[in-house]
């Protein structure tokens, strides 16, 4: 499989490690009243689409960037690759 890195061009998937659904980027607010349920859902509940899937890949053997890859789970076609930094929800406050 080939992942078209936004900065480096096409690279073999062997250079990458897969983490999972891109929803992992939207980490809930730890101080919310519903935090426990939010974190549980965020960590454990997933759709399992037969089709387009947004997922996180780590370019472990390359530039160590985290990437969001849009991949079709049926055809394996990859239609989008972006830097996770760019796709991550903004965090305004220090923890």
């Amino acid at each position, binding site marked *: 499989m080939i992942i078209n890195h936004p*900065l*480096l*061009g096409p*690279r073999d998937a062997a*250079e990458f490690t897969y983490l999972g659904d891109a929803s992992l980027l939207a980490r809930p607010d730890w101080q919310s009243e519903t935090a426990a349920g939010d974190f549980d859902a965020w960590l454990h509940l997933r759709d399992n689409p037969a089709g387009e899937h947004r997922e996180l890949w780590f370019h472990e*053997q*390359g*530039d160590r*960037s985290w990437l969001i890859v849009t991949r079709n789970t049926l055809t394996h076609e990859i239609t989008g690759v972006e830097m996770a930094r760019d796709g991550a929800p903004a965090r305004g406050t220090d923890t």
Partner: protein
Amino acid sequence: MPEYTLTAQSPLNGAEETIGDVKIAEQRFEIVSIAVPQGGGDRLSAALDRAFGLRLPVAGGSVRSADGSLNLLWTAPDQCLLLAGDRSIDFDREAEAALDGAGYVTLQSDNWAVIALSGGDCRRVLERLTMIDTGAEQFPVGSVARSLMRHLGVILTRTGDDSYLLLSAASSALSFWEDVRHAAQAVAALKALTSG
């Protein structure tokens, strides 16, 4: 007068070998990583220019100083690796001072084993090692790529028409050397078969 003195060794002990039409040899540099502070790319580029006559490289590229002794390789969106010839082990402190806080400098000299690969058949050797397209047109002089080579992470850069540097973790230097040597031997042995 200190009671004990320490002597330095390199990961490959200066190994050097000519195999067929390629030569592989350990090279030694002082190496530092330079991280780009958030929002500080321009400031760092200016500081690199003042201090060393360099600037931040583009993704997949490198920048060399006028006298050729400094080679700045792009490794990540906010990080690059500076290879310095003819410097001392305190080069990181020298660089840190010269950049005056514009970049985060970390000593990396002994993290890496460096192999110089040169000769007419070097691309034939590289195609047995790396998934990166090292075609003469596709990977021009100055290109940098970090990838996997068998089971080792390797930084590859082209320094001349037929010369490349390969960098890999110092602790697995012997395995690294064997992998490169093995590929060079395969190329040489196969060439001997067809020419014989």
